[in-house]
């Protein structure tokens, strides 16, 4: 009797569960790992909450891995153990490592298969080209995009009698010298860890190759050519500025980084990402008057477009079709104009599409005080159509090469190694890294 009753009860519960299952179906969960922390991490968490609230079919789980390097390492480790997230945020320097990994689904294919029609030509060409194959197929979703800028304290500029903002390095040198004479201890704050803005972007803006074969786009056998270009002259200049005390070291090692020193009014000029625009606004001491401008050029040089920096989102292989549907829905959500504008407003990263930018411009976004000046990043990125030297950097293990450049700059500035010798050694080191990468992927064909 009792047994029968129990059995019946069990059946009823089971039947009920089956009947209500579709209605109560838990949303498909999928993982997104990213390499940002602090304030930017909070913004990504907001974004994930908004996405989850906007629909009921998918639930994105967003996890910060602290920084880009760690995120790449953890993603690789997870992929090798078959526990990878569906989406991972990979920084610019890791692009080729991903491209040859065979571990991703191209973004175009993913969106088409899941029924989304995205107009890829709407993306700024300089951004799209960085994450595209040499044939023009976009592989990853452009996400947090930035470019390098230079920040000026306008009060200091006024004090030394400079109208407007300097546009050439010789003007920068001139105002820095006058600032020093006017009693400013730190005219220009400099961090060698910023090889990205001081070296890579300099090369792009001056249409200089970093390596042959169009910075590696046309083959894994590219060779470094930095010691043969205009950067020799620029590094010589940096050394002279450092020795004269116009360029002052501000890094993690000295106790205060360049951006903080600028926001505190101690340094009058520094170069950094447009993504730092929001941070400078937030950290600036009261009555600090400042502005941001495109990177200066050498005298008599026609500017070409600067490189996009930041990171893109890669979709990893080995997940279920439902999870890919979720990922596609998430990318589609990111591409909506409203979302693009929100992201750009709260972070300082630039909008990545033409229409997104035009819409923000039409709204008067760039006229208002805290955001004015950010449009210059777009001007810098779109100064010219991408050339062979400015469409991106397609070099293997580029993060290591970048680290070698940091060492090279330190060697020249602090250790008095002659510039030409230091850059020739840098090219040799870079070639070693490239040859090793080529040997590791000896059967691979560059997509």
């Amino acid at each position, binding site marked *: 009797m009792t047994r029968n009753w129990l059995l019946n009860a069990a059946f009823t519960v089971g039947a009920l569960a089956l009947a209500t299952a579709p209605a109560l179906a838990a949303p498909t969960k999928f993982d997104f790992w990213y390499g940002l922390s602090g304030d930017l991490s909070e913004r990504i968490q907001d974004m994930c909450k908004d996405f989850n609230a906007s629909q009921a079919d998918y639930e994105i789980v967003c996890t910060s891995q602290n920084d880009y*390097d760690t995120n*790449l*390492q953890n993603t*690789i480790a997870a*992929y*090798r153990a078959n526990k990878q997230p569906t989406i991972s945020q990979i920084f610019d320097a890791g692009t080729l*490592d991903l491209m*040859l*990994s*065979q*571990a991703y689904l191209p973004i175009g294919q993913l969106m088409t298969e899941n029924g989304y029609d995205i107009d890829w030509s709407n993306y700024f060409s300089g951004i799209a080209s960085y994450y595209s194959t040499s044939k023009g197929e976009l592989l990853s979703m452009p996400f947090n995009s930035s470019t390098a800028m230079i920040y000026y304290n306008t009060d200091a500029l006024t004090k030394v009698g400079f109208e407007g903002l300097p546009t050439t390095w010789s003007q920068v040198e001139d105002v820095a010298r006058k600032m020093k004479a006017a009693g400013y201890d730190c005219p220009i704050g400099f961090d060698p860890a910023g090889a990205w803005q001081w070296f890579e972007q300099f090369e792009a803006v001056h249409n200089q190759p970093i390596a042959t074969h169009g910075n590696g786009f046309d083959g894994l056998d590219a060779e470094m050519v930095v010691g043969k270009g205009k950067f020799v002259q620029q590094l010589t200049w940096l050394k002279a500025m450092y020795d004269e005390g116009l360029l002052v*070291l501000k*890094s993690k*090692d*000295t*106790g*205060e980084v360049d951006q903080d020193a600028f926001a505190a009014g101690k340094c009058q000029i520094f170069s950094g990402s447009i993504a730092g625009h929001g941070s400078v606004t937030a950290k600036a001491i009261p009555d600090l008057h400042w502005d941001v401008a495109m990177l200066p050029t050498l005298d008599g040089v026609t500017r070409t477009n600067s490189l996009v920096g930041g990171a893109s989102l890669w979709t990893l292989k080995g997940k279920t079709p439902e999870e890919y549907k979720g990922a596609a829905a998430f990318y589609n959500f990111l591409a909506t104009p409203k979302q693009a504008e929100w992201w750009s407003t709260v972070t300082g990263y630039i909008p990545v599409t033409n229409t997104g930018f035009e819409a923000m411009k039409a709204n008067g976004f760039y006229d208002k005080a805290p955001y004015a000046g950010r449009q210059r990043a777009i001007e810098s990125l779109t100064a010219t159509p991408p050339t062979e030297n400015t469409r991106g950097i397609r070099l293997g*293990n580029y*993060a*290591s090469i970048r*680290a070698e450049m*940091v*060492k090279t700059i*330190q*060697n020249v*500035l*602090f*250790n008095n190694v002659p510039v030409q010798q230091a850059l020739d050694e840098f090219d040799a080191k870079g070639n070693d*890294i490239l040859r*090793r990468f080529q*040997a*590791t*992927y*000896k059967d691979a064909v560059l997509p």
Partner: protein
Amino acid sequence: MERRAYYRNKGLPWLLIAPQLLLVLVFFYWPTSQALYWAFTLEQPWGGGNTWVGWDNFLSIFHDKEYWGTVVRSAFYACCTTALSMFMALTLAVFVDRSLKGTRAFQSVYVWPYAIAAPAAGVAFRFMFAPEAGLIGAINDIWPGIWNPAINGYQALGMIIVCHSWLGIGYNFIFFLAALQMIPRSISEAGAMDGARPVRRMLDLQLPLIAPTVFFLLIINLISSFTDSFGLIDTMTEGGPFGSTEVMVYKIYFDGFKGLDYSGAAAQSIILMLLVVALTFVQFKWVEKRVHYN
């Protein structure tokens, strides 16, 4: 009759050492064999496959000028930290052993640094030694520019050496103190009656009697300075400026994890492992035979 103890049951001893054996297999032999395999191949970071290259990885390491730089730097680092740390610990232990006022309190205080994790200590030291903001940086107010590990490689290396030695003092101190307290009082007292001053007694009596401990600590310290420097370097200098604090273990981390050169890093770690194995071998074979135990 067989004189050594043995188990009747052949399976029991294996069962008893199984947990330990399992730990060693999982956490040592398995990763080591993996590293050994990678050291002779070129491993793709994303696991897409690899190619057998024989000794190429080792050859390219041995031809790398920078690698030899890190080897010399590591050796220098190991000698300095070991000497500094052991000397400080021995001095402290000798004083504590003399039962001066407050000995009990000092006994525990001197051990504390050993309980601090290297990365935590590294962050604290980083603030103390920062040239612009730190405690030590204050001397720049008196002599501007005299202290700047951000641009001076020797100062940066010196800074790490001091910090590493400081962390090791506690460990060495315990061993020295225990060894010193093992020495029969009567020997010291007899020396004292013959008119030997404390320094003389330490050099001629105590030091020879604790020689086994000294040699044991020497090897342990050398090994730990080759392998444990990572936490401090990563939090304090990240190998900079211009690579002047890049020691062997840090280069392995950098090449492997940041540079994604798994095979190069694996080959380097095999070399480092052989070095540590050699040191351990020296300790067991050579030192144990020659050092006099009482």
